[in-house]
C-alpha cells in the first residue's frame, strides 16, 4: 500500500510541475512556495524567541556582579551607570580596584584603572564616527581594550567599564567579589508565549490565505485533469492523494524557501537595533527551538496538502467530469457572533483590573480579532445579496459576487484581521503619544554627585552657562556618630535665603533648622559611608551656628554656606537642576557636563521602546500582509479570467466593451475590500474603546491619519490589482477564445 501511495504522490508531484502548462505550473509552484516559505519564516522566527531570550538572559547573568567575600579576591567597587545617547541606551560600570586580585569580568581582558576605559566594539566605533562627536567628552579616558562577545548581550550594545578613583565613596556603590549570577530561567512566560502565538497566528492567517489561493490557481484545469485520471481508473482516494502530491511539491519547495529566508534574516539580525532588544541580537543566539519548530514545520506541508484536499470537498470528480456541489446554504450569523461576544465579555470581565496584560484582556483581544474573518463571509454574502442592478459593469460584478462570495470573503479576511489589529494598536499608541510633551522638547532632570566642594562649585558654574534652567540646588545628608541624620542644604547666602528665613547672612555662616547636631560635632556624609566607613567624607560642624525656625527642604536641615564647608577635605553632595524644555543637542550637552558622576533623566526626547517596536513591527507586518493580500487578489482575478474566458469572449462577441468588463472587475475587487476595511475599522476602534475607556479608564483617541492611510493603501491595492489584471483581460477576451478545442 505504501508503494501505491508513494506512486500516487509522485504522480501528483509530476503533475504539479506540468499542470496547466509549464509557465502556469511554475508560477503556481513559485507562489505556493513563497507563501509556505513566509509561513516557515514566521514559525522559525517565533520558535527562536525562547532561545533568544534565554541566551540574552544568560549573557546578562554572566556579567552580573555578585557581592560577598571570596577568598583570594580583592573586592572591586562597582557602580552601575545607566545613560543614554540620542535615544540609544548606554550602560556600564564605574570600577575601582582595591587590590591586584580583581574578579574577572566576562569578555574583558583587564579591568580599567583610573583614567582608563574598556568599551564595547559598538561604542568604540560610535566614538570614532562623526555621529559620536557629541559623545566623546563623556569618554576622555584612555581606551585599553574592547569587550568581547561573552560580556555583551548584543552586538550593537553600547557598554563600558570606566576606571574611577572615586567610585568607592559614591552612593549605591557595591563591593563585588565575582561576576556571574545564576541566570533566571528566562523562557517565555505564559503571557509572552500567548503574545508570540497571537503574533504568529496573525501573520499566518494571511499567509495561509495566500497559500490556499495559490493552490487554487488553475484549479479548473486541475479538476479536469483529475477527472481524466478517474476515467482511466483512479479511485477517489487516489485522486485525493494525487491532489495532495501536487501541493506537496510546492510545500517542500516552500520549506527550502523559508529556510533560506530564515538564514538571511538570521544573518541580518545583528544589524537590527530595536529598543526592545537594546544592543541587538547575536546571530548565534537565534536558534529555533526544534521541539516547537520541527512539528510546526512538518505541519506546514501537511496543512498545504490538507488545504488542497479540502478544496475538493465541494467538487465531485467523476470519470465524466467535474460536478460542483451547487447547493448553497445561507450562512448563519448566530455562531459567527460567538467569538466577538465571548471576546467582549472577557474584556468586560477585566473591568477595573487596569492591567492590559491580564490574561482575560489578552484572550478577549484575540477573540475579537479572530471574530473578524468569521463574521466577514456572512457580511459579504448578505451585503452582496442586498445589491441590485445598475450599470452593466456593476450588474456583472454583483451577480458574480452573489454567485460566489466565499472566495472574496476568504481573500480579504487576512487583510481585515491585520488592519483591525493595526488600527487598535495604533489607537492605543496614539493615546500614549498624546500624554507626552510636545515632540522635540524634553524635560531634563540632571543630578551631579561630587566628593569635592570645588567640583560642586564648578558644576554649578558650568550649569550656569546653559540656557533656561531652574536654579541649581545642592543637597547632602549628614549623619552623627549617634546615627541621627539631617539634611545639608548648601548654597550662597542668596540661594539659602530662598530656602529659609535668614535675618543676616555672611559666607561662612551655618544655620540649623531643627537639626540634631551640636556645635563642633563631627559628622559624616551619609550614603557614602556604607561603602567604606573609613573612606567616608567627614566634616566638623563649626563651633557657632545660628538657629532658624524651619527650612523649606526638610523639617530637619543644616544650611551651610561655601566658606563654612571649606574645612571638609571631601564631601558627598548632590547638585541637581531641571531644564523644562531642552532640545536633543542640549540634552547631550547636559549629559556630557554631568558625565558618569551623576544621572540625567530626560522625558520626551524619544518614544518609548516597546511602543516604537510595536509600531515598527506593525508597519512592516501591515505592508507585508497588504502585499500578500494583493497577491492573493491578483491570483484569484487571473484564475477567474482563465475559467471564464469563453463566457467573457462571448460577451465581447455580443458587443460588450472591454471597459465594461474592466469596471466589472474593479467592482468585484472593491466591494469585498471596502467591506473588509469597514469591518476592520469597526473592530479596531471597538477594541480601542473597550481597552482604553473600559479597562484602563483613559479617553480614547481616534487616530484618523492611520485609518486614512490604511484605507488609502487598501484602495491603492485594489486599483493596482485591477491594473495588473487588465493585460490578462485583454488576452482572455480575444475572440480567439471562442474557437472550439
Amino acid at each position, binding site marked *: 500500500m505504501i*508503494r*501505491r501511495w508513494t*506512486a500516487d504522490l509522485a*504522480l501528483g508531484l509530476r*503533475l504539479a510541475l*506540468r*499542470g*496547466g*502548462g509549464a509557465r502556469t*505550473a511554475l508560477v503556481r509552484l513559485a507562489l505556493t512556495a513563497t507563501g509556505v516559505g513566509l509561513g516557515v519564516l514566521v514559525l522559525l522566527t517565533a520558535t527562536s524567541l525562547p532561545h533568544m531570550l534565554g541566551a540574552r538572559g544568560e549573557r546578562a547573568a554572566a556579567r552580573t556582579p555578585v557581592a560577598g567575600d571570596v577568598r583570594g579576591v580583592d573586592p572591586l567597587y562597582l557602580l552601575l551607570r545607566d545613560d543614554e545617547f540620542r535615544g540609544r541606551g548606554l550602560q556600564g560600570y564605574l570600577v575601582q580596584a582595591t587590590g591586584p586580585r580583581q574578579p574577572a569580568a566576562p569578555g574583558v581582558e583587564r579591568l580599567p584603572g583610573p583614567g582608563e576605559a574598556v568599551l564595547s566594539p559598538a561604542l568604540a566605533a560610535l566614538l570614532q564616527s562623526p555621529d559620536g562627536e557629541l559623545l566623546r567628552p563623556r569618554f576622555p579616558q584612555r581606551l585599553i581594550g574592547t569587550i568581547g562577545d561573552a560580556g555583551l548581550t548584543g552586538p550593537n550594545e553600547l557598554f563600558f567599564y570606566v576606571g574611577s578613583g572615586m567610585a568607592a565613596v559614591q552612593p549605591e556603590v557595591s563591593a563585588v567579589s565575582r561576576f556571574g549570577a545564576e541566570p533566571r530561567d528566562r523562557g517565555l512566560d505564559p503571557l509572552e508565549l500567548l503574545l508570540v502565538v497571537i503574533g504568529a497566528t496573525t501573520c499566518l492567517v494571511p499567509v495561509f490565505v495566500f497559500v490556499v489561493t495559490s493552490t487554487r490557481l488553475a484549479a479548473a*484545469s486541475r479538476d*479536469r*485533469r483529475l477527472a*481524466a*485520471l*478517474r*476515467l*482511466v*481508473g*483512479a*479511485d*477517489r*482516494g*487516489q485522486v485525493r492523494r494525487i491532489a495532495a502530491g501536487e501541493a506537496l511539491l510546492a510545500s517542500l519547495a516552500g520549506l527550502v524557501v523559508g529556510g533560506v529566508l530564515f538564514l538571511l534574516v538570521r544573518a541580518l539580525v545583528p544589524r537590527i537595533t530595536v529598543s526592545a532588544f537594546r544592543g541587538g541580537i547575536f546571530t548565534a543566539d537565534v536558534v529555533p527551538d526544534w521541539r516547537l519548530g520541527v512539528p510546526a514545520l512538518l505541519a506546514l506541508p501537511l496543512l498545504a496538502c490538507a488545504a488542497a484536499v479540502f478544496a475538493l470537498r465541494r467538487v465531485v470528480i*467523476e*470519470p*465524466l*467530469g467535474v460536478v460542483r456541489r451547487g447547493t448553497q446554504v445561507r450562512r448563519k450569523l448566530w455562531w459567527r457572533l460567538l467569538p466577538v461576544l465571548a471576546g467582549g465579555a472577557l474584556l468586560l470581565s477585566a473591568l477595573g483590573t487596569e492591567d492590559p496584560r491580564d490574561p482575560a484582556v489578552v484572550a478577549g483581544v484575540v477573540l475579537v480579532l479572530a471574530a473578524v474573518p468569521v463574521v466577514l463571509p456572512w457580511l459579504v454574502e448578505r451585503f452582496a445579496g442586498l445589491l441590485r442592478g445598475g450599470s452593466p459593469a456593476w450588474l456583472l460584478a454583483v451577480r458574480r459576487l452573489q454567485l460566489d462570495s466565499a472566495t472574496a470573503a476568504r481573500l480579504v479576511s487576512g487583510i481585515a484581521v491585520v488592519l483591525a489589529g493595526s488600527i487598535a494598536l495604533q489607537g492605543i499608541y496614539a493615546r500614549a503619544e498624546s500624554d507626552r510633551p510636545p515632540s522635540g522638547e524634553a524635560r531634563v532632570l540632571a543630578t551631579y554627585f561630587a566628593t569635592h566642594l570645588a567640583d560642586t562649585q564648578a558644576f554649578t558654574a558650568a550649569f550656569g552657562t546653559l540656557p533656561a534652567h531652574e536654579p541649581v540646588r545642592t543637597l547632602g545628608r549628614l549623619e552623627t556618630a549617634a546615627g541621627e541624620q539631617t539634611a545639608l542644604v548648601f548654597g550662597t547666602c542668596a540661594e539659602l535665603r530662598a530656602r529659609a528665613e535668614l535675618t543676616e547672612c555672611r559666607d561662612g555662616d551655618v544655620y540649623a533648622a531643627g537639626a540634631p547636631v551640636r556645635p563642633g560635632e563631627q559628622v559624616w556624609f551619609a550614603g557614602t559611608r556604607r561603602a567604606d566607613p573609613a573612606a567616608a567624607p567627614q566634616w566638623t560642624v563649626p563651633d557657632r551656628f545660628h538657629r532658624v525656625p524651619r527650612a523649606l527642604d526638610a523639617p530637619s536641615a543644616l544650611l551651610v554656606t561655601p566658606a563654612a564647608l571649606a574645612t571638609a577635605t571631601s564631601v558627598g553632595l548632590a547638585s541637581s537642576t531641571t531644564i523644562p524644555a531642552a532640545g536633543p543637542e542640549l540634552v547631550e550637552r547636559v549629559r556630557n557636563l554631568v558625565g558618569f558622576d551623576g544621572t540625567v533623566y530626560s522625558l520626551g526626547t524619544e518614544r518609548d521602546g516597546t511602543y516604537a517596536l510595536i509600531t515598527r513591527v506593525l508597519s512592516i507586518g501591515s505592508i507585508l500582509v497588504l502585499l500578500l493580500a494583493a497577491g492573493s487578489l491578483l491570483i484569484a482575478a487571473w484564475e477567474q479570467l482563465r475559467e471564464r474566458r469563453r463566457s467573457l469572449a462571448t460577451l465581447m462577441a455580443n458587443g460588450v466593451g472591454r471597459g465594461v468588463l474592466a469596471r466589472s472587475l474593479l467592482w468585484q475587487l472593491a466591494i469585498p475590500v471596502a467591506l473588509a476595511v469597514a469591518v476592520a475599522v469597526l473592530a479596531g476602534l471597538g477594541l480601542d474603546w473597550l481597552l482604553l475607556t473600559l479597562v484602563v479608564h483613559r479617553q480614547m483617541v481616534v487616530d484618523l491619519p492611520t485609518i486614512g492611510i490604511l484605507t488609502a493603501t487598501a484602495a491603492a491595492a485594489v486599483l493596482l490589482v485591477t491594473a495588473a489584471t487588465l493585460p490578462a483581460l485583454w488576452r482572455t477576451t480575444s475572440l480567439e477564445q471562442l474557437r472550439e*478545442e
Partner: protein
Amino acid sequence: MTGDVLLEADGVGKAYGPTEALAGASLRVRAGEVVALMGPSGAGKSTLLHCLAGIVRPDSGTVRYRGADLATLSDRARSALRRTDFGFVFQFGQLVPELTCLENVALPLRLNGARGRAAAQRARTMLADLGLEDVAGKRPGEVSGGQGQRVAVARALVTAPSVVFADEPTGALDSLNGEQVMQLLTTAARERDAAIVLVTHEPRVAAYSDREVVVRDGRTRELEVTR
C-alpha cells in the same frame, strides 16, 4: 463472434431530475463482439454506455459484468475495473494534457501499480503497434485531433481490457481521420479479443460493428444487421 456474455444490462432506468434518460434498457455484450449503440441526440445512448461501464449508477434495473452486479461494487472496485478490464475512448478531453502521449498511455498501468520503466515499455510497444512512435514524447496539445484519438485508443487497449467503451470516438474528426481511428480501434480490439461498445449516430461508423442496437426514448431495440 459469439463468446460468453460479458456485460448484461437488464431493465436499466436512469433519470436526471425530471428528465428520464433511460427507461428499461436492456443489452447483452459478448466477448470480442463490437456493438454499436445508435440513436438520435438525447435518446440515452451515452447514459446507457456510462451505466454499462459502471461510471453512472442506474436508478433501476441491473448491470452485470461477468455476472457481478456493478451497483453492488464499491467505488474502489469499479475504479479497479476501469483500470484493468475496461478501456475508454471518448470524443475529446480524456487525455491528460500535462502528460506526454507515452505517459498518457502508461497512466492506467501506473495507476494499477506497475513500475515506471515497465509501464513505459509496454506503452511504447502499444504505440509502436499502432504506428504512433513519433508522437510518444509529445503532449496531447501538440498532436493533431486524429493522432490524439489514436493515442486514446492505445491507452484504452494497453491494459488488455475485455471491453472498450467508445463514445462518439470520431465525433470531432473529419471523415478520413474518423475512418482511420475506427479501423485502428476495431482491428486492434479484435486482435486482442476485446469487445467494443460504441456510441455513434453515424451509420458510417456503426458499419464497423457486428451488431447495432437502437436506443430511442431510453429503451433499446436490436436491429437485424448482417455484415
